[in-house]
């Protein structure tokens, strides 16, 4: 498996998708084993690819920004006027994404065999999962923007299908629609950005575009606008403010899906996109500042919302939005290595947390923390792994999240404004608080719903196995920060040298003093959380009654959804109804219905009056002609 054959990776799940979607009824177990075997093969191939890549890296043969590894012309019209290739491109950023996507996907598929057992459309579920993996792998491997955009929409479609998997539930279908439409708004930005870049460079090839943009061939204002549009796509997909509203609702989908798509892989596509174009963003600092502040605001806002939510999955969703904000902050100060590192660790611990919450939901059929509690007695493995995940999320040392979050904070204090660092550090404390709260309310204390508690039981090995594996990954994946680990794997200068070559100072050694401060604040967060929600959570209730307005503000998600709903209802639909009214009443006087009914009631005599309305249409046309003439003469 060399880099030239990387196209095989998405090809396998595509074939599986077609097979399972069409023939799952004929297969034993509806074809789930096929999806898992295929996925395991892909994981194996990814490791072979990794060996090939590190080999060529060691041999000094790898050139970042080199030509596409594999390409053929897909469409070529107008004698080279419009060429779309199918191409794959492998570099360090790709090599971070590939293991994340494939390993989490494999874990989720294994987990789903138990979690989804007995569901209707079980085969379809695995088919769509395969489709998603295929699209996601195409996305991270694609060497040109068209292919990237197609894959981008492909993961969106798979996400839509999976959020709406329980489409009998009104809320699920609504959430699917919301996610779809909201991310589409971002996609429009991406599409416009792609067209703008194509217009300036005449190519869709990502490396050629980067080369053209960094060599100053594009006017800097034009480039800034293009890159902002591109970032618009990332904002939609990665649920950043103001398009973050879809992600919490997307929790209507099956929990393993949330783990895969809405925590580990699809939502980080935006981070991937910006990281991919990071050399260009380094040229347009205005755009980079926008990324920084959007990420910062989102991280803080989502962190506060995570404090009050009662639904396990929603807390995790807010935390995902918040952590994605962390990654964008890192990108906003140019610390691509830190962003990718956090992406890497976050994928494992967040997938772990989601799968853990799935285990709880599976056991109790409840997902509001008000109905849970005390589950540590019944579900020891789930509890233990969930705590590992939470500690990683909170940023407690030795767990993965600590190292990666530390990298981001460190980058921010070196290259960003001081107040931004304070906000982000405060958000990190908030993270520790709400993760502690979640663990305490779910697994500790007294059971709040005795019936659910009585029926709770530890999940089977198909579910606990992936939990344990992910818990291990959530612990050890942070160690890649140490150069010794990288060197042990045969990479001189550690992983950091590989992942981001031109900013070694962000990714080589750990600054222990700084790290101690970060660890201290995380611990402080845990302690605050423990003080408020430990035992019977008297203090938490007290705090809520002390500041009811603030609580309502947070529970209502900063009233952001209300605001958007109002904008859609009042402005867009209002405008549409005004235009429709105009179209129907002023120009078009009576629609065909009205006319026909009038005739039905008043019979024959009114007929000529009715046809008398036709001049109004003609009048519209005449006005059109006059207006056109004016434009023609004026223009």
């Amino acid at each position, binding site marked *: 498996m060399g880099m030239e054959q990387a196209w095989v990776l998405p090809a396998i799940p595509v074939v599986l998708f077609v097979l399972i979607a069409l023939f799952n009824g004929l297969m034993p177990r509806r074809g789930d084993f096929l999806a898992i075997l295929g996925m395991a093969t892909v994981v194996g191939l990814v490791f072979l690819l990794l060996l090939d890549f590190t080999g060529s890296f060691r041999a000094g043969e790898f050139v970042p920004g080199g030509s596409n590894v594999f390409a053929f012309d897909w469409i070529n019209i107008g004698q080279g006027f419009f060429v779309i290739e199918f191409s794959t491109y492998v570099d360090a950023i790709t090599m971070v994404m590939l293991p994340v996507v494939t390993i989490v996907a494999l874990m989720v598929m294994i987990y789903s065999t138990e979690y989804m057992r007995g569901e209707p459309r079980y085969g379809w579920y695995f088919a769509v999962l395969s489709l998603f993996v295929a699209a996601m792998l195409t996305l991270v491997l694609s060497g040109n923007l068209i292919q990237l955009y197609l894959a981008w929409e492909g993961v969106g479609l798979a996400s839509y299908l999976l959020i709406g998997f329980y489409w009998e539930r009104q809320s699920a279908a609504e959430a699917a629609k919301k996610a779809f439409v909201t991310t589409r708004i971002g996609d429009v930005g991406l599409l416009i950005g792609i067209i*703008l870049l194509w*217009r300036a460079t005449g190519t869709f090839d990502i490396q050629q575009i980067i080369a053209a943009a960094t060599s100053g061939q594009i006017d800097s204002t034009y480039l800034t606008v293009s890159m902002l549009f591109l970032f618009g796509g990332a904002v939609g997909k990665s649920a950043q403010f103001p398009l973050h509203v879809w992600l919490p609702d997307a929790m209507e989908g099956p929990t393993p899906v949330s783990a895969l798509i809405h925590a580990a892989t699809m939502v980080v596509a935006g981070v991937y996109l910006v990281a991919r174009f990071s050399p260009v963003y380094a040229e347009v600092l205005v755009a980079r500042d926008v990324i920084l502040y959007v990420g910062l605001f989102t991280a803080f806002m989502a962190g506060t919302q995570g404090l009050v939510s009662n639904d396990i999955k929603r807390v995790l969703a807010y935390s995902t939005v918040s952590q994605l904000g962390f990654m964008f902050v890192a990108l906003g100060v140019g610390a691509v290595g830190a962003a990718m590192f956090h992406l890497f660790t976050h994928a494992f611990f967040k997938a772990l947390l989601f799968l853990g919450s799935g285990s709880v939901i599976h056991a109790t059929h409840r997902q509001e923390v008000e109905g849970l509690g005390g589950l540590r007695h019944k579900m020891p493995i789930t509890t233990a792994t969930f705590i590992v995940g939470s500690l990683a999320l909170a940023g407690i040392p030795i767990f993965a999240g600590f190292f990666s979050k530390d990298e981001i904070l460190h980058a921010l204090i070196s290259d960003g404004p001081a107040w931004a660092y304070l906000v982000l550090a405060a958000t990190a404390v908030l993270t520790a608080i709400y993760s502690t709260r979640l663990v305490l309310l779910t697994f500790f204390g007294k059971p709040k719903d005795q019936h659910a508690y009585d029926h709770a039981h530890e999940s089977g090995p198909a579910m606990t196995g992936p939990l344990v594996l992910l818990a291990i990954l959530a612990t050890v994946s942070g160690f890649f920060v140490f150069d010794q680990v990288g060197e042990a794997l045969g990479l001189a200068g550690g992983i950091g040298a590989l992942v981001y070559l031109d900013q070694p100072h962000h990714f080589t050694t750990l600054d222990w003093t700084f790290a101690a401060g970060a660890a201290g604040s995380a611990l402080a967060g845990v302690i605050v959380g423990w003080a408020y929600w430990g035992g019977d959570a008297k203090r938490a209730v007290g705090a809520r009654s002390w500041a009811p307005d603030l609580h309502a503000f947070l529970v209502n998600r900063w009233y952001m959804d209300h605001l958007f709903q109002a904008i859609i209802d009042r402005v867009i639909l209002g405008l*549409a109804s005004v235009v429709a009214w105009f179209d129907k009443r002023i120009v078009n006087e009576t629609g065909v219905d009205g006319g026909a009914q009038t005739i039905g009631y008043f019979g024959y005599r009114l007929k000529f009056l009715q046809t008398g309305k036709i001049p109004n249409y*003609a009048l519209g046309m005449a006005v059109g002609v006059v207006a056109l003439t004016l434009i023609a003469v004026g223009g």
Partner: protein
Amino acid sequence: MTDVLGNTLNLQYELLLPEIILAITAVVVLTLDAFKKELRVGYNSLPFVSVLGLVGAAVATLLLLDNRGNFALLIELDDFTTFFRLLFIGTAAVLIIGSYEYIERHVSHVGEFFALILLSTVGAIYMAAARDLLTAYLAVEVLSFSLYVAVSLAKNDPRSGEAALKYVLLGGVASAMLLYGLSLLYGVAGSTQYAEISEALAAGTGDVTLPLLLGLVLIVGGLGFKAAAVPFHNYAPDAYEGAPLPVTMYLSATSKAATFALILRWFAGPLLPAVDDWAWMLAAIAVATMVIGNLVALQQHNIKRLLAYSSISQVGYMLMAVTALAPDTGVATSGAVLVHMVGYLVTNLVVFVGVIHFYNKTGKEEISDFRGLAQTNPYLALTLTAGLFSLAGMPLLAGFFTKFILFQAVASADYLWLVIVGVVASTVSLYYYLQVIKQMYLYEPLVPGRWRLSATGYLTTGVLFFFMVAIGIWGAPLYEVADAAAGAIFFV
């Protein structure tokens, strides 16, 4: 032979074979219908013979593939003509095969109906093939008259006659506008031959700029009516709603495509030297059409009216590309229009054939009547969903790729602001397409129980579905064909 003016004329009648076959088939169908009892044939013989004629015409077209030239300086036979011959013949075949059950039950005068479809196909083909304003105008009228009559043919639907009346009266106004515009153009250029008009306009229009402008305005207005572009679109939703469903489909498919064939022939050919005079008019119309078409579609409750406004907005996208025709990138741009037209046509036919079969079963056409279709007929629901997604421009379906290439062409011609309007407008469109999809998947059906399409229903939707996906994934052959066709219409 030569005419009185000394022009050498080529009168090879075999070049007209496809249209001759179509016209004769129309007469045969009429005769069959009139003597049904005497000849002891049933209803099914009519669609059968019609399709036979269409197949014959298609075969004749393919046999004539390499014969280029003109017929008596009136009709040009080139790749562009061949492209549209096949497109229109194919559309008519889909219409007849996909909806003959509907026609039997809900259309009065079935024999005349099939004859009208065949004859109007002749008109549509000659709109694409004309190389003289005279033939072009006559072809426009052949198509329009067929449609005026066809719109009135819905059985037991009072809306039908009223729609036809509106359509015919306003169509008359539009034809008058078009004709007056053409007269002015003749006055300016001194010829009705496209090639000579092109030469005359290229030589400079210093003294006659004003009549040329007025002529262009009137031509744009007349064609704008035929294509249903804002503000000449008012008749369209009424006509679409009142017409029998297959005619609605025909209005949104062949009628529009033929109008755009004519627009391309004119604006890329004889009128291209005057591009600076008409580009802004078309840009204004394109923006108005995209914005109003999409916004008003948000408010519709009837599937026919929804599709009417949706097709209006599609017209806006194509007009936008015509705006961007320029001598240097013109071939690629008009190729993009052709590609988008085929993509739109295929997608639109998928949706309409689906809706026709839905109507065959339920007799309903409100959007809310589609509730629960995913449970009662998952295949149809899936087909309609894919079709609507393609109309909205979702990737991997025809609609995305063709629209993308269209936008691309416009962007490269420096009409970036138009592209942005177009992209935003097409995002709005997703909302109203999702409304239909929501009905199908979210709600319980009013009348539970599964039902199936007829064999021809599966056949037509299946084939169209295949093409829709094929164009979306592997469109290269289509692009090549469209590029060759577009190359034929330029004089410079």
